[in-house]
């Protein structure tokens, strides 16, 4: 018998079908009066930054005010009109070439108020490595696309064909040395989320 059949047989022999049905996921989940404010408060506590922006112009101005941005030599933006992109992500075949990217500017699909997370996918993104290898990450999220909690988040998500998606909440961090929080473990040293008003 193959290992697969062996394991399945052993599981079937041992499992007891006494459990009730799967629970529905309806409940009186937490709601927030101001989703944007809640999101922005939480993202600050996890080491990120949230900026409300009226226009692309606003975003570009805010970017220029970030010292690390003005001194950045490699910037990869996949959003037309935002950021002075000089790395064309669609032309990069080997993700290792992204090693020295300073700033990545990517769209986030929606945000979650309860935990400051932004849903980002590799749709239209040839090398998802850029989200993690860049020194600084900027996500641009439509301000109207904030859900209160994770249950609402998964109501929006459909996993059909192959693809990758990630909830990102703050910059890369570690507390593995004596519980001291250090921002910038392996990935981005900062996360800025722009909430656009359209």
């Amino acid at each position, binding site marked *: 018998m193959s290992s697969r059949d*062996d394991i399945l047989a052993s599981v079937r022999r041992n499992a007891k079908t006494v459990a*009730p049905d799967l629970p529905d996921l309806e409940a*009186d989940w937490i709601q927030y009066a101001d989703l944007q404010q809640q999101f922005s408060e939480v993202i600050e506590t996890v080491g990120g930054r949230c900026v409300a922006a009226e226009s692309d112009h606003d975003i570009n101005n805010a970017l220029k005010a970030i010292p690390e941005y003005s001194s950045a030599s490699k910037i990869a933006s996949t959003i037309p009109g935002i950021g002075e992109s000089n790395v064309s992500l669609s032309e990069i075949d080997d993700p290792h070439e992204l090693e020295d990217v300073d700033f990545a500017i990517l769209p986030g699909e929606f945000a979650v108020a309860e935990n400051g997370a932004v849903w980002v996918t590799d749709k239209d993104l040839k090398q998802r490595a850029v989200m*993690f290898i860049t020194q600084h990450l900027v996500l641009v999220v439509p301000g109207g696309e904030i859900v209160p909690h*994770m249950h609402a988040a998964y109501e929006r998500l459909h*996993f059909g064909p*192959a693809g990758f998606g990630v*909830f990102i909440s703050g910059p890369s961090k570690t507390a593995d040395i004596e519980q001291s929080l250090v921002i910038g473990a392996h990935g981005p040293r900062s996360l800025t989320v722009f909430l656009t008003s359209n």
Partner: protein
Amino acid sequence: MSHATQAAKFVEDQDRAHWHDQALWFVRAKRDRMATSLPEWETLREKASQIKAYTMSHLADLLEQFERNATKLGVQVHWARNAAEHNEIVHNILFRHDVHKVAKSKSMLTEECHLNPYLERHGIEVVDTDLGERIVQLNNEPPSHIVLPAIHRKKEDVGEIFHRYLNTEEGATDPEYLAEAARAHLRDKFMNADAGITGVNFAIAETGGFVVCTNEGNADLGVSLPKLHIACMGIEKLIPRAADLGVFLRLLARSATGQPITTYSSHFHGPREGCELHIVLVDNGRSEILGSDDFRRSLNCIRCGACMNTCPVYRRSGGHSYQTTVPGPIGSILAPARDANAHNSLPYACSLCGSCTDVCPVKIDLHHQLLTWRREIAVRGLVPLSKRFPMRIAGVVFRRPWLYRWLGGLARAIVPWLPRFLVYNRLNAWGRQRELPNFPKKSFRQTFRDRNEQ
């Protein structure tokens, strides 16, 4: 060696033991703040427990469904009965791809299977990329906690280890400086890895995908650069629906470290274009546990570590004293299931205070199971003589009230007059670190009777 013997070594350094206790209590306090900030906390725990109960009773069907859907996404699914098979499968995949260097992110399963030494014997370099895991790997010791692998190490220790292996300045203790040195060191490892290995936090039967949670982003860096990703998971990591993640991701990080969610919760559905994704499903004793009415619920564990952070014994004895991959309350249930004789002391490393059961996000009845294991170990005749003999005597005495009363009177009359060496000796484990209370003049019965007569 028993847990108590190992723990005795840990508490020899009182300052360090106290510091360890406080460090974990700090994490427990953060967890409490997060749990109380959500009015629906108990509803979430209840839902999580129900989802897991359903999963365990339909596990075979769900595993098949997962395999079908993952295969459709282009994932290659492997099955391993035990640790040896798991290691062989992983090595074969790596061998076929001519892999010499692997970047691995945290996976307690690969620890359980002792994958690192196996691959190293076959000439493959395995680098643990989680900072805590890298610290203990460089120091050639196992993790002492499943979420905080280097929680037993002070920053001075880390400074020394990094000075030795990463050429940092001697005597450096600044966490920022040390983490920056590790970042540079591990970037190099990421850039040169031929393959990435990760664990799995949740695998979704309905979609064939899986989720990996980290704060550092090490799992994502490790698998988005090379062309080969191997994900290793125990069969109990399955959940039926993607929507169930809403419940589990809300509970996991809040319970583990007191964060609202981990920095990265990555959802993998199929390989990157031109790349390979393999999933290894491992049994290694899990299906046997499934058959036990008493211990089945231990498979619900989502490895948050909350039971360790709150456990008064774990906090004061350190993870290494358990001598298992998973220490603490949940480890003391899982380990005897694998080898009851080797781990017979673990169910006793518990005061039955029940705090673990209170904080468990999936409502495992941990302290009840620990008590059940004590009985089980006694039934199987695995209780050591040093416990069995006094228990037998106690049994004889407690069955005979007259004998109990008589011996009590005798002790009250004699013990206060005995020379110290007769009371405080090897047989009196209680008296090793503390003084016995003063013997009262009267028994409880006498005091009670006197009071009623007044």
